[in-house]
């Protein structure tokens, strides 16, 4: 999507004349990704799509389930939920990939962590969904695993809690939704905001959901990509920072958030085509926390914040992994790993901001309303701090 920044600045200036509350509830502008709005996170260049799918072979699909309005009736709705599926590569159940995990705060569920820690491998598609659907999604993914005399792979399912807007207890995600998301997965642009597993999610007390970003690293004659996808459902409004600016504190003065539970979490998936081994990917995963923190999160006591990082560069055939005569791998020398760590941190930060910028207002159970991040006010704050690129700082 292209955006005429000059036109936006004119519109933005006009919108500032409108009452703040009205502007917050009904943004004048449509939703746009951070870079299209003039927000540039970090200094490494993004890939062509600025998405996790910039890593060749990675595919993403969403199933978004939205139905009903009004009072919560468990098992009926309203429903604001879904599943996001990531294929690290289509043949993942037969050709494993090295992976690493990190847990900034573990009050949640993220299956597959033990396979990552003890075996250092990823051997399943990754699905992100709502808290109460982990078991069902896990079982659906288990059915994709080959059945023979070798050990079965470990489904990877992460969850965040969408019960502010969604009838979570009603368990509206079913196996067909998982299969639809897996089947719909493609390379290319990734839908963001209130889609898939991010449909009912809340981030810094604004509407959150799915976000993505990427970074390209060129060194030693090689070109590698680090791509990130987040399911952003974390943070309190006053904590939000965008590109180092305490946007949330200023927005809270204009429009305080209603008191809500801090039961919320962030799931961060990092993909790279750089040849990194499991222990190096764990280091990459740990850097996601820095990107998360730059957006203001401190990983609250009740957060289920999880990161999984995988590399598509070394493919380990299942047979060789379990009972072959060994296999060969390649890896980036530790002395040259810094740009990848930086890329992971930057891309996580931008992916979270993209989730906020792309998500729209949503009303869910019992009329609960979660506003979208008010872009007009946000950009005005960033402009005052000199943080808009492309001459939009005025």
């Amino acid at each position, binding site marked *: 999507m292209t955006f005429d920044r000059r036109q936006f600045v004119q519109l933005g200036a006009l919108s500032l004349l409108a009452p703040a509350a009205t502007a917050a509830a009904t943004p004048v502008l449509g939703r746009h990704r951070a870079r299209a709005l003039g927000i540039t996170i970090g200094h490494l260049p993004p890939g062509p799509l600025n998405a996790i799918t910039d890593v060749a072979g990675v595919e993403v699909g969403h199933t978004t389930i939205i139905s009903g309005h009004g009072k919560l009736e468990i098992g009926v709705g309203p429903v604001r939920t879904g599943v996001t599926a990531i294929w690290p590569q289509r043949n993942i159940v037969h050709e494993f990939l090295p992976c690493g995990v990190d847990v900034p705060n573990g009050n949640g569920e993220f299956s597959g962590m033990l396979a990552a820690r003890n*075996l250092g491998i990823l051997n399943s598609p990754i699905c992100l969904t709502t808290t109460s659907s982990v078991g069902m999604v896990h079982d659906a993914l288990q059915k994709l695993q080959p059945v023979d005399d070798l050990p079965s792979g470990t489904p990877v399912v992460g969850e965040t809690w969408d019960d502010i807007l969604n009838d979570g207890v009603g368990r509206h995600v079913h196996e067909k939704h998982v299969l639809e998301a897996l089947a719909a997965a493609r390379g290319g642009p990734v839908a963001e905001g209130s889609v898939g597993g991010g449909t009912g999610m809340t981030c810094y007390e604004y509407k959150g959901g799915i976000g993505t970003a990427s970074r390209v690293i060129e060194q030693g004659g090689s070109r590698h990509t680090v791509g990130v996808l987040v399911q952003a459902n974390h943070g309190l409004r006053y904590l939000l920072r965008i590109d180092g600016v305490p946007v949330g504190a200023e927005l809270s003065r204009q429009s305080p958030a209603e008191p809500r539970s801090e039961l919320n979490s962030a799931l961060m998936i990092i993909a790279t085509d750089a040849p990194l081994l499991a222990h190096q990917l764990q280091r990459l995963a740990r850097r996601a926390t820095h990107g998360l923190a730059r957006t203001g999160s401190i990983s609250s006591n009740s957060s289920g914040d999880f990161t999984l990082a995988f590399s598509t560069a070394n493919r380990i055939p299942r047979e060789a992994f379990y009972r072959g005569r060994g296999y060969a791998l390649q*890896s980036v020398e530790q*002395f040259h790993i810094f740009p990848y760590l930086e890329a992971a941190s930057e891309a996580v930060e931008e992916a979270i901001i993209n989730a906020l910028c792309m998500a729209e207002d949503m009303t869910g159970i019992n009329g609960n309303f979660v506003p979208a991040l008010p872009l007009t006010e946000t950009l005005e704050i960033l402009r005052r701090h000199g943080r808009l690129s492309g001459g939009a700082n005025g």
Partner: protein
Amino acid sequence: MAKQGLFKVVELPFCQALLFEHWDAAPGRFFAALRTRGAFTSLLGNGVLEEFRTISGPVLLVPSSAIGGVYDAGLRLADARSLDAEIDQGWTPLTIGIDVTAPARPDNWSAQFLDAIQQEKSSGAAPWQNTVRDASVADYRLQRLHCHVDGKQAATILATDAPLLPQQLQRLADLGEAPVTIAVALGNRLPRVEVSELQQIDAVSEQQLAPLLSAARRLTR
């Protein structure tokens, strides 16, 4: 000095060093893993091991009350190797404290210590008991050193020439029943390479790893 196959043991009356290669080898690292149990806390140099999952110098064992001085001597050894003191040149010296009364050290103990390691020559015995056992598993060897104090395990070092990855080594180290267990795989030596080059790594399958784990279980008891 006792030559023990996968590692060499250099002993002095106040400390002990396990060398996996000559102290002044070209920059390079071996994958390593660490497991501690219970209330054990007397350890220096573990940060680099846990971050990079590698080791590049000797493992030093010393009475806990003298751990700082011996760590510092280990740092001098790394400085003698290279003033850059990188993670493939002996930074940081992994130094394990053993809960035992420290014997008196001569004034020139630090010079004695460095000389013993550089010459790979023992002079006396450390104030704890050592037992070394080894096993052969298919194509690979496994060797372990137990340090005992009054019949109780104080530390275990496991070494193998199998090319185990860090997560596989961790499973080996986790079998250790001593307060601290270090596992080192010599099957991949990671030399320093230019930015345009990649490290070439070998790995074993789960089927190859299983008997190594069984052997390690027997050796660590």
